[in-house]
């Protein structure tokens, strides 16, 4: 069967794109729409680098056949602060040196956003659990967990 036209609402914007059979949501975002924030790491669900929000929930976009989610709402790292200043969470990553190569960062930001949406005041353990699907080979995670806790505090209006 030939390629099909799929509709998605990506970062609040209605998009149409042509997809080949079996194309992943990740492939559609990166190759179809030029949104290269979500990364292709393992392609089998082990690394978390492709994590995006699908209808409000974090998922591994490499494991979603895009034809099965026609019409869905998708949020990627590009939608976090499209024009304005960085979000509290992003700023906390910058301030806390929570990135090195940066490959895992978009996926971890999405997993952390999902956590804070449900639980604005997480414990350290809850942060670790929330990002347990994301592999970082640079930082050793400590700075990332610290940054998520700091970002959550900033979002709650706590001054440190």
């Amino acid at each position, binding site marked *: 069967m030939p390629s099909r036209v799929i509709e998605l609402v990506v970062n609040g914007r209605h998009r149409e794109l042509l997809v080949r*059979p079996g194309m992943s949501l990740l492939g559609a975002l990166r190759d179809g729409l030029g949104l290269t924030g979500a990364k292709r790491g393992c392609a089998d669900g082990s690394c978390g680098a492709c994590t995006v929000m699908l209808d409000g929930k974090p998922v591994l976009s490499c*494991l979603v056949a895009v034809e099965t989610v026609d019409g869905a709402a998708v949020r990627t790292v590009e939608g976090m602060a499209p024009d304005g200043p960085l979000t509290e969470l992003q700023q906390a990553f910058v301030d806390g040196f929570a990135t090195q190569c940066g490959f895992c960062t978009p996926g971890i930001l999405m997993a952390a956003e999902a956590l804070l949406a449900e639980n604005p005041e997480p414990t350290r353990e809850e942060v670790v659990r929330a990002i*347990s699907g994301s592999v970082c080979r640079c930082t050793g995670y400590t700075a990332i967990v610290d940054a998520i806790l700091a970002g959550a505090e900033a979002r709650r209006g706590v001054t440190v």
Partner: protein
Amino acid sequence: MLETVHVPPSVDEALLALRDGAVLMGGGTTVMPQVNTMPVEFTEVVSLRRAGISGIEVVDAVATVGATTTIAEIGADERLAFLRPVVQTFASPPLRNLATIGGNLFVPQPGGDFGVCLLALDATVAVAGPAGTRDVGVAEVLEHGVAAGEVVTAVSFPVPADGTFFYRKAMRRRYNSAAIVSVAAVLVREAGVVRSARVVLGGAGSRPVRAKAAEHALVGKPLDDASVAAAATAALADATTFDDAFASAWYRSRVLPVHFRRALLGG
């Protein structure tokens, strides 16, 4: 090479789409890695995402869970709170938003944590096929799968009484890892003595293994250090441990009695 992804809006249409040997896909967590990384031999995939078979019902203490209900949805349901220890040690939050309970029946060990639990719960599987629907024991599905052209539409199981369900999964990491070994059990006690026992082992065979020798060692005894130690040793006779990237067969056999004891007595 993949030529078509069907997204049927009903089970009936899924069955029609399956007639020509298409591969079934639930949450995509086992099919998509193949599509992403290798030249697959199948040409058609049938996704059940929109087939209308997700959702949880609990009636008279019997839970019926639609096949495409995600692991995260199960974890969020208060009525199935006894399964939280299973959900919280199952992969990662983003994966739990995709993986389905029906699909998990077909994941070989040491994945497939829900297969281990559903066998302990003596679940029944609803299967739809070209000739109609049938109910089949989960043991049968775990061992032999379902026929080509059939679709698992739901699983149902009695919700165990408080304090009768036991679960432990030993992992290489605290989160997001397949099992080294896992133990799920439903133990009913009366007057301080184990009256009935269903004990299932994960990581102890290519499929979940019913630990009948361990069950036999428990029934009629109090649930204490001595009886559990005897049952934990007996469980080794039920296990066929194996080597993989997570652990060696030697290691699995070495630690199985330890985690068996922790599953039933804590610690």
